[in-house]
């Protein structure tokens, strides 16, 4: 039986993080796990690297004492928000790390972090061309057919077919 005041998270390579449960009260995944399988020793967080999980836990620790209402999951993207100055670490983050944080936030179901990373990604994407966007986020790992499909999709938007 694990300590209810703390929770142990295990990353994809076996690294463990033991943090107070109160830090993760905004994580829907953790809350569901505590309700259903809280008697287990540790919670496995697959597909999340230790570095990213450490960053996520830092975010949760910073916002642990926030009194604002937790956002619905998924967060409503139609409502603009102002980034907290305490989250400036995400602004200088490299693009690929920001992508991993976005995915980790989605895995852990933390809508506040999803909103923050999506906002940062949107600000970086805005004004870029498709090639630049691909270059930002691990272009070497893109499948070939994805790159091939780009031209086709581009033609759909560019080709004026009224006269054909």
């Amino acid at each position, binding site marked *: 039986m694990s300590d209810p005041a703390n929770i142990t998270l295990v990353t994809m390579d076996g690294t463990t993080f033991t943090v107070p449960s109160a830090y993760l009260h905004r994580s829907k995944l953790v809350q569901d796990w505590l309700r259903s399988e809280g008697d287990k020793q540790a919670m496995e967080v697959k597909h999340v690297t230790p570095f990213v999980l450490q960053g996520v836990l830092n975010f949760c620790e910073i916002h642990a004492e926030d009194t604002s209402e937790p956002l619905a999951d998924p967060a409503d993207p139609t409502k603009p928000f102002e980034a907290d100055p305490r989250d400036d670490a995400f602004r200088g983050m490299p693009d690929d790390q920001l992508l991993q944080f976005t995915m980790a936030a989605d895995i852990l179901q933390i809508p506040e972090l999803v909103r923050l990373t999506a906002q940062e*990604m949107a600000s970086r994407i805005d004004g870029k061309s498709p090639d630049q966007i691909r270059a930002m986020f691990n272009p070497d790992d893109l499948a070939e057919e994805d790159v091939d499909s780009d031209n086709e999709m581009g033609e759909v938007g560019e080709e004026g077919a009224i006269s054909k």
Partner: protein
Amino acid sequence: MATINDLPTEILLHLFQTLAHVSPNRLDYQHALNICSRVSRRWHAAASTLLYASPVLKTHWNWRRLLGAIVWDAQPPCRRAYTLGALVCNLDISRLWNVDIMDDVVEHDDPRDAAHRQTLPLSALGTGLTAASIETLCRRCPNLRSLSVHSCAQISAGVLDAILRECPFLTVLWLPGCFDRTTLRSGATRVDHDDAKCAFCRAHPIITRAPGPLDRPHPRSPSLFPSPSPSRNDGALAIRPPPSRQQHPSFAMTPSAFIVPPQSNLRVFVESIDASLTNPYVVRFIGRESAAGRRICRVSLDRQRRRKADEYATRAMFKEVAVRSEMVRLAESIAKPASPLMLPAGDSQLARDFFAKATTSVAQARTRGGMTIRIGELVAHVMYHRKSIAFGVVMWIAPRVEFGVRDVGGGVWGGVWGVVEAEREEEEANGRREAAEYGTYVSAPFSASKSYISHINAHASSPPHFSRRRPRPSRTLNPHQPPPPPAGGPLLARPLKPSARGIGPVPPPRARRWLGG
């Protein structure tokens, strides 16, 4: 290592919706979405749902690009399981009515567009739209929920038929200014408008019975849309030939025999008051629909009509008009030439005088350009005596706007439209004097008018107070508490700047962006 294609679709949608906050306007947002749709296949699938859901169409170039993308996408081979047209839910092509097509073509001197110019129908000049293009678009967009077309003379009964037939999920249909452009100018017949209204009633599935023939030729115009080559589309774009009069069910009914079940939820924003309520067919139709307890058609007059001020020699300042069932019934009785004025007991003398003037000064109105009635005062009385609905509508008007009564083909109940008073100096003096005399003026938005109606129904014995509209008033109207007297000068309608097209507001600078590209 994660890639952009590893992001789940929900996060992609969240990301693309967040782009709206980063982009300064909707057109830039659309542009950003288009770029995102070209990043990868997964991004395309996610971004297209947002890109095509409510496309922004500000220029005719946008319109042609959207139409081209949707039509081209429907041609085989199509690798996707969906078509782009199916993603379109809300379409607002109202801004295209004032687009000068030739300027647009010159601005975008793209060699690929040469064929567009060659096939550009002349009828599209001044409207930016063609009937065939609208038909084609509706055919390609079966999931369309909202369609807004403004002042498009190409909206004939056939086009309306096609819209309602091809878009079964349509809930909002905006057609202001589409039918009366020529009728009011000529002052003659309203055949086009009647046809269009009847086509709506015929084509919509809420019609259950339609006895009697309609002696009109088929309004469908020949296709102006260039038919693509057979090798590309296998004839998929060909406009279907019009059915014969014997086969087409829409010709087997008269407009006075509309039987509409009450489950309809289609709201039709059809026409300005001077064109729709003057039509006895329309009045009967609206009356029956409202009597059935259904949500009534809302007749809308928007500020765009001011742009046609040079045509009408008026400046309509209507914003929104709601038709109520009892008003329509009264209007229907008034529209009959032989029927007496059906004013219930207890009406004020002013309302009686108004009707008397309206009935006797039609000829005078023809020559003088309209008999002006102080609508604020009139509406105050009409709403107080709620059964004596002189105009049959509850209307929001800008202050200092008067209304004229003209015979525009519909009898006494005929045209009512806004006329900005010419003598503004006199108006200022009158306004101050009237404000001091009456202390009341009805110039509230429709939402406030509704609350006022409910107040009238609840307190029919005592006339409430009105608040005079300020230049930038609040949207609330408290009938129980009289507002403070207007401060700072007369409440004139906002002066319109001269433009190259004549009297009217200066049009906004045309956007140079293509549709998302």
